[in-house]
């Protein structure tokens, strides 16, 4: 469904991604784990078209994304839950959700989707008229996920959904991801919290300073001594930002 072939990208002259290849198949949950500064966010920004790919190819649903503008890419069914949630702070919760469906023409279906989403996440109904900036971090994360779902994505990309959340909120967010997985949503999950990500994912890639150094089934990666040492093992501690 999504295929990256030796993609290079970065900011200014500094290369961040030094040629990464990965793929996501329909119905899969794939995680991209790595430490701070490995290039995880850069990878998502490049896929969404916010950063140009300098070299390599990005293909999604049979279309070449490398030269496509971000506002076009979302119309192909690729939605992003950005790092740090990035809700529209001064807008109401409902307005945020409706903006998620900005590109969609089927307004009646959008209304139905909104009702469905509210039934699923009652907090989005309770806080409907409240400015999104007044929500707690966890609530904002749920809103950001809801907003992305309003685009009816074929592939949902999440950038560190556990970042800066209280432990019980991390559990809540990952429960949501598990539900989404169960309902067949294809997910590309970028995480620093490797432990949580590998638990929900089918497959994983390990990114280190711009290169993929390891990939495989999530269960295998969990058992891999290198991953255990670097991301799960003794020296591992959660990083709250």
């Amino acid at each position, binding site marked *: 469904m999504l295929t990256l072939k030796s993609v290079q990208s970065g900011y200014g002259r500094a290369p961040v991604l030094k040629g990464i290849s990965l793929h996501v198949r329909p119905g899969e949950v794939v995680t991209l784990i790595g430490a701070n500064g490995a290039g995880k966010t850069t990878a998502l920004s490049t896929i969404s078209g916010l950063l140009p790919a300098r070299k390599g190819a990005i293909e999604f649903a049979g279309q070449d994304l490398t030269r496509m503008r971000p*506002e076009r890419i979302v119309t192909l069914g690729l939605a992003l839950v950005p790092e740090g949630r990035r809700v529209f702070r*001064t807008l109401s919760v409902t307005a945020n959700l409706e903006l998620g469906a900005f590109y969609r023409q089927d307004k009646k279906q959008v209304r139905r989707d909104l009702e469905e989403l509210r039934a699923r996440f009652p907090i989005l109904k309770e806080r409907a008229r409240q400015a999104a900036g007044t929500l707690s971090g966890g609530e904002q994360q749920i809103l950001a996920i809801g907003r992305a779902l309003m685009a009816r994505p074929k592939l949902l990309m999440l950038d560190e959904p556990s970042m800066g959340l209280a432990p019980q909120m991390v559990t809540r967010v990952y429960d949501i991801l598990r539900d989404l997985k169960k309902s067949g949503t294809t997910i590309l999950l970028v995480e620093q919290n490797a432990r949580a990500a590998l638990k929900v994912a089918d497959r994983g890639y390990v990114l280190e300073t711009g290169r993929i150094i390891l990939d495989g089934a999530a269960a295998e990666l969990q058992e891999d001594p290198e991953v255990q040492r670097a991301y799960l093992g003794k020296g591992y501690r959660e990083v709250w930002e």
Partner: protein
Amino acid sequence: MTAYLLHLAVLSGIYVILAVSLNLIIGYAGQVSLGHAAFFGIGGYTSALVSLHFGFPFPLAVLSALVVAGTCGLGLGLPTLRLKEDYLAIVTLGFGVIVDLVFLNLEITGGPDGLVNIPLPRLGGVVFRPQGLYIVLVLLTLLLILGLTYSLVRSYHGRALRAIRDHETTAQVMGINTPAYKIMIFTLAAAVAGVAGSLYAHYITFINPESFGLHTSILLLCMVVLGGMGSIAGSVVGAVILAVLPEMLRQFKDYQDLLYGALLVGLLILRPQGLMGRGKLSLKFITKKE
């Protein structure tokens, strides 16, 4: 006395139009323009010139002002608004100064003397005189513009604009064509300022570059900030206060700027969101976003 009050009302009306249009750029699209008076001037001069040289009737003169000011806005917005950083503040500041110099030095604009004998507006057999019906003309235009602005900011597009102000990159990922929206709103605001220029020129019937300089741009910015960014009603209030206040304080003219300064500093401390604004004032063209 009534004539004087009427004069204040007309001027306030024109400033309200300007402040509301500037607020679209600042308060809704989150861009900073420091040269809004340039479009006001372009509109004023265009309208005066086409009336004086080609004998255009008033509606056509207003339309010319709208088109020329809007085109200038588009020309300025196209290269600058495609960038994410706040280059607009710098570019509009420069543009304001350049336009001011152009008015001052061109022969066709009458140089420092400006243009005189600009005809009063006529519609059918009715002449809109400063002491008479002019206020009706201003109020009708104002109501029309307020109506259009309100429906714009409450629409689907208005929401897209506010999303851009809150977080541009995220807005883009939602499928919002952010450069197109920013350019569209900037062009629209410039065109509206052009209309205000036309109303001003045909009211005063004599214009020179003095009315359209940096001082006016800053005054307009103050009106928006005072009223509250992102609040249309706030812009109305801010514009009326700052249009009327200088007249009230005529005898203290030398201390006027001091008072403005004190007013803005006081406001920033006591009510950073402006009198009626909801969002907080962030001087993000000085500091960095976020």
